[in-house]
């Protein structure tokens, strides 16, 4: 039972009052931003990064993680009640959740989603508990070549799996890589791209970039969006689903847990894709697929379970390999680096309290969220009435003042505004901000491990293919890179034969629309 000792010790970390408090703060904030359309979890985490400076690493990550998985719970509420997905990962919940609400079963839909989320989340934590040390143990032998390949693959997958133009996402990633090189070259000590500025000599901090591109960029972008007025119902009754309904949805919840868990681990995967995949799977499996879109409980329970399971399991690559699987995890990575903790395979061994503290805090967080989503759901339904026009200046001010507190300097505030403009323009012109931030975070790791590997290989790039793991990863890299080209060639050929296949899958279209919100 040696394995379980650190796991149990992790609970004592979680139960420290400070950590419990931050867990509560995190999940409440997560639930709130999930309920309020506009800011997504990534933007919120970016804006709140300065808040984590003053606390222990484990406390900081407990809170940020709470925001992330809390948002998965909260996003459901607006999907069901208003037909407005609060989060991208709740888009598919709209289809059946809103119909259930129309049939007077809003409470049931919310209750099923909450219970599904809880089960999915908890199952994923248990999976994480057993899988993470295994992956970490496997990755302990990774050397610079493996890390170069892994980082490259991670960036490529995040860029290509995200919605929108893949070329543009890759451009964003290359900008992130270039931004990461600003400052002193770690090998030679020479200045790069500093243009003689003293403030740039040490490189650009991660926090102003994240706060600007994710936070302020999204705030500015939302100013433009005509927020549809939402007529929020004043209360929701009977959120406890009946035994029959639960039994009916249990299959969907079980499948959603497993599907979400595995999709969350994959780089570029995550909550949004998991929820869409689960919806598609439930519809395919159903005996009467025509019920979907007309208030099928499985259409709510499955995706909501899957998005939560995925949100939890996407911590695995971050905490065990040090490779963030999506943009939100890139923010966690940055937050850990600020705290002087480098996520990687050694984390489980060297910082067991941090690792197990964060993992186990998720049990508590999920219980808190279940309480907030069932008995306390009325409070959050009432929060739906807060107007975007009032929230916008508040979030903008939090961003500006928060940015100042990082180093007590106006330079950081200016940087945040500059990157805010960049983030806004990127969104306008269809460039996803996620890959930029991810590439920025991984840039230094990628460069240094690439250069180290080349030193080992004596400057011969074919050396990467002499090691099995780096060779496999690079082969996948090439495959993923070439795939879209091949696919579009095939599609082009098909299009000439059958032009009528344009009808398309509604699920995908809708999801792409809302994806920009992440």
């Amino acid at each position, binding site marked *: 039972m040696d394995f379980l000792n650190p796991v149990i010790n992790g609970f004592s970390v979680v139960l420290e009052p400070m950590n419990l408090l931050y867990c509560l703060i995190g999940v409440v904030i997560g639930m709130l931003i999930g309920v309020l359309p506009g800011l997504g979890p990534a933007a919120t985490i970016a804006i709140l990064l300065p808040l984590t400076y003053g606390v222990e690493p484990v406390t900081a990550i407990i809170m940020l993680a709470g925001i992330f998985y809390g948002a998965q719970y909260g996003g459901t509420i607006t999907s069901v009640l208003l037909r407005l997905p609060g989060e991208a990962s709740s888009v598919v919940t709209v289809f059946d959740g809103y119909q259930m609400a129309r049939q007077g079963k809003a409470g049931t839909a919310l209750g099923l989603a909450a219970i599904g989320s809880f089960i999915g989340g908890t199952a994923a934590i248990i999976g994480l508990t057993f899988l993470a040390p295994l992956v970490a143990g496997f990755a302990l032998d990774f050397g610079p070549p493996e890390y170069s390949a892994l980082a490259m693959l991670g960036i490529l997958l995040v860029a290509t799996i995200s919605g929108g133009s893949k070329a543009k996402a890759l451009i964003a990633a290359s900008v992130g890589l270039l931004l990461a090189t600003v400052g002193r070259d770690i090998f030679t000590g020479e200045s790069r791209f500093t243009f003689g500025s003293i403030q740039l000599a040490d490189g650009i901090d991660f926090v102003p970039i994240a706060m600007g591109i994710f936070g302020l960029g999204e705030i500015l972008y939302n100013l433009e969006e005509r927020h549809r007025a939402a007529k929020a119902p004043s209360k929701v009754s009977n959120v406890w689903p009946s035994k029959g309904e639960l039994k009916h949805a249990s299959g969907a919840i079980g499948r959603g847990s497993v599907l979400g868990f595995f999709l969350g681990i994959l780089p570029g995967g995550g909550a949004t894709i998991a929820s869409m995949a689960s919806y598609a799977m439930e519809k395919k499996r159903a005996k009467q697929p025509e019920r979907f879109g007309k208030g099928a409980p499985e259409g709510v329970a499955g995706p909501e379970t899957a998005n939560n399971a995925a949100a939890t399991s996407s911590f695995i690559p971050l905490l065990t390999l040090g490779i963030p699987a999506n943009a939100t995890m890139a923010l966690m990575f940055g937050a850990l680096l600020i705290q002087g903790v480098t996520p990687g395979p050694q984390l489980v061994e060297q910082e067991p309290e941090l690792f197990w503290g964060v993992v186990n805090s998720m049990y508590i967080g999920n219980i808190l969220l279940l309480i907030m989503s069932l008995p306390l759901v009325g409070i959050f339904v009432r929060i739906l009435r807060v107007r975007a026009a009032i929230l916008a200046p508040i979030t903008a001010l939090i961003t500006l003042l928060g940015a100042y507190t990082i180093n007590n300097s106006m330079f950081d*505030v200016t940087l945040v505004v500059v990157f805010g403009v960049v983030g806004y323009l990127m969104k306008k012109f269809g460039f996803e901000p996620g890959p930029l931030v991810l590439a920025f975070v991984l840039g230094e790791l990628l460069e240094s491990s690439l250069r180290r590997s080349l030193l080992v290989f004596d400057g011969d790039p074919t050396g990467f293919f002499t090691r099995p793991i780096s060779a496999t990863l690079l082969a996948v890299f090439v495959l993923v890179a070439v795939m879209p080209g091949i696919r579009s060639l095939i599609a082009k050929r098909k299009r000439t034969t059958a032009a009528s296949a344009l009808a398309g899958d509604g699920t995908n279209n809708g999801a792409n629309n809302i994806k920009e919100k992440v």
Partner: protein
Amino acid sequence: METTPAVSAGRDGSTAVTPGADATNDLPESLTPEQLAAQWEEEKPPAAGPLANAASSLVVLGVGIGALVLSVAMGLGTLSAPQPGLWPFMASCVMVALGLFQLILGRHNRDAEKFTRMSLAPLIGLATLATMVALMPVIGFEIPALVLCVIWMKFLGGETWRSTILISVLVVVAFYAIFILALGTSIPHLF
């Protein structure tokens, strides 16, 4: 001045009841996912034309080529003995190649959004943010923050004067209490 009437519609309970906005809220009874997706597609902001796509590609190309030239100036070295410029050189090569690809093949993509009259709102928002950054070291954060709140709520958000002023004052007082009194940060402040 561009306002967003939809935001303020009929929520105050007292004054701002716009019957039109309420009518649009009465969503049609049943929409299939496909119809719903189509509806979202329609509500999306208009897509920008090829000119905007070309412009963004040219900016990417410009930045990429700039970085490329600077990287070469830093010295490339060889793969076994790299100079500081080699890695940025590789990254900027990727950027230039993708920029060219985007310029030639991505012109007719519809993923860029047109700048409309609504885009005035972020512009004004940005102006207030920039002003605040400029004024904060001089006169502290309180007055610029108050002005920012008023502009964002009243003119960009279409709130009523009453709620704008009430909430703006509350927000600034709350921030003062949190950042100055409670956390004791050194944010420049007037009072």
